């Protein structure tokens, strides 16, 4: 087991390095960040530019810049933002909590609800309930996430005026003057969007796998030996049907750190996803690189954790 984990961790190094090199070269190809800072400020003199270049280490050749960046990242230092020179670590640290709050709540709700619905839908295939569940979840995967957010804002914030349309707290009126209730009110709409989308994907996965498992011989044998239907479904069938969902959860866990950029953008949520979109708009490379690397490493680790969880769920799988 330990040997397997160590080997997998070693495998991650070339992938993470590859992604960092591709990202860095892309950033470099995008042009000189100093020129972008200068946009609209034509009066900056050469001395200031040189000073700025030296400050951000941009006067050195590409490979030296990359190596400097890499050594800094290995010491968990992601550099300074090009706008205002705030350390990237500080920025990410401030925003990651809001993203995590939103994502953890949504993933938990979606995961818990999706299992019984998916199982029920598979057991009653082609029944009226199943048709409703499958069409609603197909709608969920066909819908642009951000558009669902827009529609909810138009209905619940603009027309009915029940819920706040943006931000994580505060705003025009604080809900009943209670800060906790206010935070919950701000969470409702973005969580609804995220839960619906995840729920749709999860239900489709669980239903499809459950259908296949329920056709298999061992379920037939279990039925023949008179085991209660409840035990057959939740103890024997679900165990085999759930593994793709775990994979999906693993991918979500990795992406969780990035936040859902679309949802965060629409609800003006002060999280990493929103921040990433802003940084990309302004070509603020240190922030973009920092967030990219964090997502990459988290996704790789999440994949490893998923593979280890598999062993406990499915005893047929052996780690090699």
């Amino acid at each position, binding site marked *: 087991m330990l040997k397997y984990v160590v080997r997998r961790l070693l495998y991650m190094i*070339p*992938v993470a390095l*590859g*992604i960092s090199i*591709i*990202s860095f070269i*892309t*950033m470099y*190809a*995008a*042009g000189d960040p100093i020129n972008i800072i200068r946009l609209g400020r034509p009066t900056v003199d050469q001395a200031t530019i040189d000073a700025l270049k030296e400050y951000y280490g941009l006067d050195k050749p590409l490979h030296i810049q990359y190596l400097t960046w890499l050594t800094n990242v290995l010491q968990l230092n992601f550099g300074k933002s090009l706008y205002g020179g705030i350390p990237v670590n500080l920025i990410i640290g401030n925003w990651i909590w809001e993203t995590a709050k939103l994502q953890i709540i949504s993933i938990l709700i979606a995961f818990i609800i999706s299992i019984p619905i998916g199982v029920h839908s598979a057991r009653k295939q082609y029944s009226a309930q199943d048709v409703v569940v499958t*069409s609603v979840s*197909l*709608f969920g*995967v*066909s*819908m*642009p*996430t*951000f*558009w669902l957010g*827009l*529609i909810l*804002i*138009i209905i619940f914030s*603009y027309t009915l005026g029940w819920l706040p349309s943006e931000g994580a707290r505060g705003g025009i009126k604080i809900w009943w003057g209670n800060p906790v209730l206010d935070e919950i009110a701000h969470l409702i709409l973005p969580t609804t969007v995220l839960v619906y989308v995840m729920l749709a994907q999860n239900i489709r996965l669980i239903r499809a796998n459950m259908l296949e498992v329920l056709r298999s011989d061992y379920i037939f044998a279990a039925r023949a030996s008179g085991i209660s239907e409840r035990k057959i479904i939740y103890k024997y069938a679900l165990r085999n049907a759930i593994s793709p969902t775990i994979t999906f959860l693993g991918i979500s866990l*990795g*992406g969780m750190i*990035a936040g859902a*950029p*679309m949802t965060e*953008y629409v609800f003006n949520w002060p999280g990493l996803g929103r921040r*990433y*979109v802003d940084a*990309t*708009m302004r*070509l603020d490379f240190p922030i*973009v690189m920092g*967030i*990219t690397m964090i*997502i*990459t490493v988290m*996704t*790789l680790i999440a*994949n490893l954790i998923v593979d280890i969880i598999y062993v406990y769920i499915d005893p047929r799988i052996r780690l090699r």
Partner: protein
Amino acid sequence: MSLEQKKTPEGQHKRRSASQWAVAWRRFKRNKAGVAGLIIVIFIVFLGIFGSFFAPYPARPDPGAYEPFYRGDVRVPPCEKYPFGTSAIGTDILSDIIHGTKYSLYVGVVVTAITMLIAIVVGSIAGFYGGWVDNVLMRITEIFLVFPSLLFILVFVRIFTITVGEPFWTVPLIGIKIPAGLTIVTLILAIFNWASNARMIRGEFLRIRELEFVEAEKALGASNTRIIFRHILPNILPSIIVVSSLTIAYAILVEAAVSFLGFGDPNTATWGQILQENYSDMRTVWWAEVFPGLAILITVFGFNLLGDGLSDALNPRLRD
């Protein structure tokens, strides 16, 4: 003449495989959801090709598109004259949506074509040859899988659309004008989308490579190219068709998201672009957010339904 004679055994083979497709078609016809998807897709394709003939106003770069603006009809809610209302910049939303259809189809089809081409080449080589070739190709695929794709698409689109000079490129020989910015977005979407499909094709190759008929063909002295193109690929074709339909749906969704975030091609009014243009006036012109979003939803829903229906019809494991 000699060519005709040579073709006879193949002709027989073709007739047999046609009947296989006929079986699939018969199964597909029984699936109401799949047929509904096919009807939606046919309607969308019809709208994409012939839409400009019955749209009330011409497409965007044409000054005629701004006729409502010159009449003073800006932000007119849905009425008899403008069934879907007019936008914040004074265009007829119904016309915008009709013209946007062809852009969405363009993105969907081109992304899918490139994605599948890369996926088939990488997947076939990795799956057929195995060994170190497989190892290297799969590591590269992994890099593209782990990449935080939506976020990275934004970086690339931002970088490349900055450098675009002309709004339209003319394709040599055919003389069709294609939107430059949108084409760049499309190419970038394709580059970040092939990895999971390549994995799927590799898996299928690994499965079929071990089957007896391939072994028999090898014993008969068939070349590798013959085995790949005449025996393994035709067996994977059903999966490729299903995945293609789903990839078109996915590409349309991602393009809408990219355009909505303001990274799209400002010269082409895609559905996502219309949503973006009216986003800041959402409080008043809700109709400009609702209807283009519905167009995306219906189109993607159609392709997803079609994909699910095809998968049921072509998947031999579930054949009863």
